[in-house]
Structure formats: C-alpha cells, structure tokens
C-alpha cells in the first residue's frame, strides 16, 4: 500500500465530543466504517478543510494541507478534494449540465466529460434540474460532478444511505466502475459492512471519535451466517 493521506494527531473538539485520529490511508478505496455519531462526517469535513482541527497535521500526497503548529491551512477550494455529502448538495437552481460544469478545470477536454457521463449513464439528464431526478440519478450526478473537478482524493459520505435495497444493488456496480476506471483515491464512509467489502480494499474503523482499527477489508470483516458481512470482533 502506498501512503496517500496522512492524518497525524488530528484532534477536533465539538462540545463534549472529541475526535482524535492518527491514520495513514492508502491510495485505493478505503472504507471509513463506524456507527452513527462515531465522527465519520466530522472527519470528512476536517479532510476537506470545511472544519478546522484544533491540533495535528494533514498531509496529502506529500503536500501539507493543514498544520496546527505552523498555522498552515489550505482552504477547501485549493485542496483538490472532491466531496459528496450525504445529502448530495446538488445546486437546485442549476441544470445537471451546469452542476457538472461547476468544478471542471478550465480547458479540461470533452473526452473526460463524456467518459464520466457514459460510465455513470447520466448523458440523457443534462437538461434536467435536480428536482426532476430520481434518488439514484441524483447520486450519480453528484458523483460525476465531484469526479469532473479532477480531484486528487474523493470523499463519499454514505452514498447509499437513504436509497432502498434494490436501488443500492443497482448503484454499487456504478461505484465499482468509477473505482476501477478513474482510479481516484477514495474514502468511502459507510456503516454497512457489505458496502465496505464490495467496494474497498482497506478499512478504518471509527468509534466514538477514535480509530479502533485499520487494515485490509478481509482481515477485519468476516462473512455472516446469513448472506453478508460483519465486523470481526477484535480481542
């Protein structure tokens, strides 16, 4: 594994809650796994630069993004980190095409644009407004918008939460396609072991603001008796 994102002694205090992370993420797809309230979304906000930690350092691909000691703090717009929040946050007043173009680097070729559209099968939606899209379509548009900004790292916050079972099954192959074809290092937040196993090579387990364990997905998850996966109980 090649280290890609380093979080060194990153600490955030939010009222009584305290998030403390020391982790190194590889350049593939990693799952950030944990129950609600574990601090997963807070950690994503810290990585994107939307929330400033109280302490620590964040280094991505050798570049210092945040360093509490030297007060360095690269703003979100210069971090090159794509972020798809749980509620997707599509721009409701813009068409799908305008949403997709929003973060595209100037002069970025049409080839990549059409490539993303084809892989995510959203080419026919360009003239629509987000309101007119189904849940799965919105999901794919939000993913495409993030990819088209050419991020160095992609953060997906529980992308399948809120979608019904059959729809989840249909979206997973799209995510696998994005993973295999665009090869953008991705941190995938989920509380579903099945999703983590289907999509990620490595997993970081977060609980109550602490990192409980980190490792290869197949070391940390074991098959259930019924179909599916669960977290191995660690001694």
């Amino acid at each position, binding site marked *: 594994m090649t280290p890609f994102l380093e979080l060194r002694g990153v600490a955030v205090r939010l009222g009584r809650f305290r998030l403390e992370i020391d982790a190194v993420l590889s350049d593939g797809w990693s799952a950030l796994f944990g129950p609600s309230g574990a601090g997963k979304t807070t950690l994503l906000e810290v990585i*994107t*630069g*939307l929330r400033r930690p109280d302490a620590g350092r964040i280094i991505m691909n050798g570049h210092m993004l945040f360093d509490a000691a030297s007060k360095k703090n690269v*703003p*979100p*717009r*210069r*971090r090159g*980190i*794509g*972020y798809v*929040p749980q*509620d997707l*946050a*599509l*721009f*409701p*007043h813009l068409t799908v095409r305008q949403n997709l173009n*929003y*973060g595209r*680097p100037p002069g970025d070729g049409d080839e990549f644009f059409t490539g993303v559209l084809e892989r995510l099968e959203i080419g026919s939606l360009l003239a629509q407004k987000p309101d007119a899209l189904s849940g799965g379509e919105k999901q794919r548009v939000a993913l495409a*918008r*993030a990819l088209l*900004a050419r991020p160095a790292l992609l953060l997906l916050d529980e992308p399948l939460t809120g979608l019904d079972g059959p729809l989840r099954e249909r979206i997973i192959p799209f995510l696998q396609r994005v993973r295999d074809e665009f090869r953008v290092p991705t941190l995938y937040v989920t509380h579903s072991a099945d999703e983590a196993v289907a999509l990620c090579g490595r997993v970081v387990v977060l609980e109550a603001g602490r990192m409980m364990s980190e490792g290869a997905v197949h070391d940390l998850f074991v098959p259930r008796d019924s179909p599916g996966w669960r977290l191995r109980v660690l001694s």
Partner: protein
Amino acid sequence: MASLDWPAIFLSLGGALLAVALNLVPGVGIAWLLARRKWPGKAVVETIVTLPLVMPPVATGLLLLELLGRRGWIGHWLRAVNIDIVFTWKAVVIAMAVMSFPFVVRNARVALEAVSTRVEQVAATLGASSWRVAWTVTLPLARRGIVAGAVMAFARALGEFGATILVAGNIPGSTTVISTSIYNDIMLGHDADADALIAVSIGLAFAAILASELLLRERQS
C-alpha cells in the same frame, strides 16, 4: 372632478425606487453578515437595523434632520462641499431609504438563512472562491426572498409620511409625496383630490404586496 397630484405621484414612485436601489447592496450585505457570520456587536447592529420599524417615524425624521441639517454631524460636512439635503428631493429619498431598510435586511436575512450551507461548502470544494459561491449559489438561491423584501420595502417607502415631512418638508412640486399631498388635500378640504390619491396609493401598495406574496409562494412550492 378630482385632479391628481402627478408630481407627488412621480416623486413617490421615483423616490421609492431609488431608495430601494440604494438599500439593496448594503441591506443584503448586512443580512449576509447577520445570517452567516458570528461577530461582536451583531445583536446591536441587528437592533439598530430594526429600529426604524418600531420607532415613531417622526422621531426617525427628527434624528435625520439633526444629522443632515446644516449644523448636523453629516450636514455640515456636506454643506462644506455645497450639498444641501434637507428640504430637497434627496431628503425624501433618504427618509424613504431609512424607513424601508429593515424590510430589505430582514427578508434577505431569512432568505439567506434558508440557503443550505452544505451546498455552499460543496461549491467551495469544487474550487469556487467565496465571491463565486456568493454569486452563483447563495444569491441565486436567496433571490426570491431578496426581491420580495425589496418589493415590501418599496411599498413601505411609498407610504412614508412621518420621517419625510420632517426632513424633506412638504413643498408642493418639490418635496410633496403622495402621503403628504393627501394630507394637504384634507387640510384644504379637497376631499375628492385626497380620495383620488388614496385610490392611487391603495392600488400601488396592493400591486407591490401581491407581487411580493406571489414571489414568496413560488419559492415555497
């Protein structure tokens, strides 16, 4: 046959439009600061902005007169560069602007608060500067509420009487507006002229408030 005081109608309409135009940039700016930022003195500014809404308009007018009069804090500086405000059409516009300012700020604030910060944050992660986020995301999404507030402010400015009569006076053909003209007509016993102007002002206010309601309803649906 009633005769309409056209100069007063034009001054009211033109003055109200100009007052709202002057209010928009500072009003939306302050609304944004109130909606999106924490800063010391915020509650004080909030209160000052709301004051013209609850103070007797005559009191506001008197304050303006003392500020802008030839010996006033601002007035004596303006006097030095040969600008007279008090008892001119400019005073009409200023009185209207001050009295309608709370409507611009309060409506814009509600509209800006309704814009999801998540959407703004995602725009930033897509590489947008704060200005670009404001122009392409925040303001377009808050647009209806801001416009509705501007229309309400316009309606308020049209009806302005108390502050205007103190700081601009009631000079027919020069600073008389619809409301002060109605007052003149009543004092002089020209009831038919007063009724005609009342009809005009009801029509204008009705149209403005209806427009504002329609805009807000469209936003909700």
